[in-house]
């Protein structure tokens, strides 16, 4: 939706921004929750993203607002990571080898799994895999939309999402099965 922002005061700008992004805030908050390890960090990332988007709203020329917000969020996340200078990258293949024990998780157990356990397992995925699976399964993006956003082939996104989901299932199996 194109918006005429000429001759608009600060409160109008505030309202126009909220009108534009409101329907995407829930998905954006969910994506933030999947990209970082704690609820506190997710809340900060969500708010930081919205404030950066607001700051740049005057320059936004319309288009896919959801992709625009997510692009800002990923940039914010990477900048925060660089500032923190932390978090070693784990090798997904080693983890898969360790955890391929074939146990399954019953639906009742799935329902009882602590949210923090799932978030922690997501945090152990390599960054690209985590972003792909969070954007598709939490954010509701199609694999083509994720490919466009990350500027990579759709096949790469499909493979990353598949690997990430399998690793998630294996990690949770391991954590639930090993109190």
């Amino acid at each position, binding site marked *: 939706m194109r918006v005429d922002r000429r001759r608009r005061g600060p409160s109008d700008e505030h309202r126009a921004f909220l009108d534009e992004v409101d329907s995407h805030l829930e998905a954006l908050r969910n994506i933030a929750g999947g990209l970082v390890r704690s609820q506190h960090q997710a809340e900060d990332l969500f708010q930081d993203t*919205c404030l950066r988007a607001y700051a740049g709203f005057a320059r936004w020329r319309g288009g896919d607002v959801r992709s625009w917000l997510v692009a800002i969020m990923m940039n914010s996340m990477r900048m925060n990571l660089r500032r923190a200078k932390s978090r070693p990258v784990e090798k997904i293949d080693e983890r898969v080898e360790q955890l391929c024990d074939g146990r399954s998780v019953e639906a009742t157990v799935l329902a009882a799994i602590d949210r923090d356990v799932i978030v922690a397992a997501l945090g152990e995925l390599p960054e690209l895999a985590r972003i792909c699976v969070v954007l598709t399964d939490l954010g509701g993006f199609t694999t083509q939309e994720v490919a466009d956003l990350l500027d990579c082939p759709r096949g790469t996104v499909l493979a990353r999402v598949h690997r990430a*989901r399998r690793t998630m*299932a294996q990690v949770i199996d391991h954590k639930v099965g090993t109190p």
Partner: protein
Amino acid sequence: MNHDETHLAAYIAGDLSGTEEDAFDVHLLDCATCSRAVDEDHRGHRLVAALRAPLADNTRVRLESALLAARPLSRVEFGRKVLLVAAVLVIIVGVGVGSVRLWGHQNSPSASTPIAVVTDLIVSDSGLEAAPTVQSVTIDGVTVVVARSATAFAMPTNSRPAENGSVDTWLVERDGVNVVCINGDHPLLVASLLEPQRLLDLIAEGELR
């Protein structure tokens, strides 16, 4: 039957043709490996999707308060920021042209390119809270444009980490211009036709700080 990951992912995504999908359905009945992979994919999807939650009321309230407290970068302010960068660039270009006239240097025809790259990166960076300072120096007879900011620069698209062990240092190439982005305590953006390693050496030696 194909057991590879690409085929599996295509099956799960619904990308296979009707015939291929039917064949894979039959294959799954006898193949424990693929059957487990599909099962894990579905369970993994449900696990991640289980994190979906409605936006909490207090999250919305906090956001609205933060937005009201924040001041959006208006068109006027944005225009001032662009003008500031442009003014600095005019000075730089003037210095560059003067250098050519005085010393007849051969590298100058492409000297505006690093400036254009830096300008583009700065103007498209929505995270900067104030206009960076921009300088141009000549090293080894080549123009090096240096931008400094109080806040971190956005990592340029498609940049790669430098191989110097620093998580803050990123490299990218734009239209033949090499760019080094450093976001440590003193954020720095350097663009030049010099090789990336030469730029990193100059930064390490304190020549561009």
